[in-house]
């Protein structure tokens, strides 16, 4: 066990300074965007960190264009569906990989790793042609499918690590206590794997939400264009307006679901949930 660090004033100060540096480094660009989104058109380029005159006009503008609302809807729908499918499939695959010996297990793990390493940009053109042939270009399934493909290796890897942490004896104990294999999974293994499932869900959701490459290449209209791609086509209220303010506002808006998603699931990611299962 690690020894508990002594809280000397010097140590506290050092850590506080380090933490402040990290937080400032990470948050400055975000705050800058936030600041831009509240600035009026005239003060946009004044270089002041805190807006001199505040306005909510940018936010009002983006919600008045149907483009943005439609893109937001696409983003939420596509990311949620892809996350759900990838996590469910990933859970089952990871459980099998962690618990069972079956022929081709190594090959399966190897192939999923290969997919994760494959440069996505080189797949864009073939995917474009395939999706046009299949008639799913510029539709939700057209984006959900590649997202699942690239999210699955990620979710299988994180989840199988979590499953390996769960003592196998718990499953045996459940069987001895009279549980069917399905009951053992549902009542004992699944609750213990929940932190892993939520962690994976967050990672997969962020991956789908932030994707730009597929979103820009495999869509052509508002039918399936997600927010990262839609931002590219932002023009402001008219074609001649500088879109910086509205783009910033949209960027702020699309970070909100991610923050909510993380906050909502974070409470469920309780570290050390398995402590006390075995041994003393």
């Amino acid at each position, binding site marked *: 066990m690690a020894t508990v660090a002594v809280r000397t004033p010097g140590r506290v100060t050092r850590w506080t300074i380090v933490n402040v540096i990290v937080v400032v480094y990470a948050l400055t660009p975000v705050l800058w965007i936030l600041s831009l989104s509240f600035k009026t058109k005239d003060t946009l380029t004044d270089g002041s960190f805190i807006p001199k005159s505040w306005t909510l006009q940018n936010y009002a503008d983006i919600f008045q264009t149907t483009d943005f609302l439609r893109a937001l809807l696409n983003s939420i729908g596509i990311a949620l569906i892809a996350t759900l499918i990838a996590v469910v499939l990933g859970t089952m695959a990871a459980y099998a990989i962690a618990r069972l010996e079956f022929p081709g297990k190594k090959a399966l793990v190897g192939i999923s790793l290969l997919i994760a390493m494959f440069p996505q940009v080189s797949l864009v053109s073939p995917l474009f042609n395939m999706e046009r042939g299949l008639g799913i270009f510029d539709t939700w399934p057209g984006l959900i499918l590649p997202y699942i493909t690239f999210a699955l290796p990620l979710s299988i890897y994180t989840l199988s690590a979590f499953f390996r942490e769960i*003592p196998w*004896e*718990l499953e*045996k*104990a*459940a*069987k*001895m*206590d*009279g*549980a*069917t294999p399905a*009951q053992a999974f549902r*009542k*004992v293994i699944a*609750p*213990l794997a929940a932190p892993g499932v939520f962690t994976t869900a967050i990672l997969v959701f962020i991956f789908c939400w932030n994707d730009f490459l597929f979103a820009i290449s495999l869509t052509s209209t508002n039918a399936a264009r997600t927010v990262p791609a839609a931002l590219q086509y932002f023009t402001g209220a008219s074609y001649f307006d500088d879109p910086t303010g509205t783009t910033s506002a949209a960027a702020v808006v699309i970070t909100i679901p991610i923050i909510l998603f993380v906050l909502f699931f974070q409470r469920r990611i309780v570290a*050390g*949930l*398995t*402590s*006390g*299962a*075995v*041994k*003393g």
Partner: protein
Amino acid sequence: MAEIVLDKVTKRYPDGALAVSEVDFQIADGEFIILVGPSGCGKSTTLNMIAGLEDISEGELRIDGQRVNEKAPKDRDIAMVFQSYALYPHMSVRENMAFPLRLAKVDDATVRAKVEEAARTLDLTQHLDRKPGNLSGGQRQRVAMGRAIVRSPKAFLMDEPLSNLDAKLRVQMRTSLSKLQKQLGTTTVYVTHDQTEAMTLGDRVVVLRNGLVQQIGSPQFLYEHPANLFVAGFIGSPSMNFLPATLAEGQVNSPLGQFALTDRVRRLVEAADAPREVILGIRPEHFEDAHLLDEAAKAGGGTFTAHVDVLESMGSDKYAYFTVEGDQATSQELEELAADSGSADVPASGSQVVTRLSAASEAAEGSSLEIWFDADKIQLFDPANGKNLTYTE
């Protein structure tokens, strides 16, 4: 409450390795039976086959006269306590203990009553609402026991349930476990590698080695009449002394000196058609400080003088260790036992002999001592196959 019968039960892994070979014994209703042996002897595999967690390759397992080979663990109605306790960490103590009853669809009032009764028996009432993570090792062990006893199963299976506790608690839990089993009267199969637990807990002990049953019997019987070298060396602490010896015309020539076989031993040896070269086994308590005995008491044995290497005074007894010259007794069984206890790597010239002397002995470390031994208590083994040549039922 059940009778369990293992009828030539065999476990063979797909790679051909034989883990358990034709294990054949009956466990009477309410009996406390111990499976003991060094690690890798197949005792846990046997237990898992009774539980249904591992398939039986050949043979038949019957519970209450019914073949259960193909039944899932949940349909065999037996409870198991694991070495790691395997408590469900996301459930409170109460939920852990109620889990088997909930799965059996018992109604809430009964569940409550049964859990509370079990908690009272195991002194867990004040911990019912805590999570396993906040309990001490001994408390966790008791929760694991509680989860087994709540549903009054046909039998308990225990896989080294005390080996994760510290020494003092282990002794304490051992007695309460024994009391609990007597009180409930439930058939119990208990796996351990600790011969002390085997001796103190069991009605009968099954000694396993390399998947083969070596001997089955009451602890006292195994101690006094081991069937072979392995059982003789495994049961008893400190373990039996083994020395090379030769037999000739009713005389034994050993590092302890030359002495005559007693009538009882000679009859057994003749009946067993013993070879010339044998291994002589003698337990530490069959030695005594010769100065403490009168001539009449010494008549049935031999005496020899030895140099005491180490003397351990336990208060009630004294253990004197000395080395006798000559070769060590060698056999495959003894090598295995040495490997299991980790003493195989200790370099030794000559054989070490441990003797238990009475506390009144004036033996001192580094000085010579005249030691008497009881010639009627010696056991002779065949070095080729380890068989006890002086074995009697």
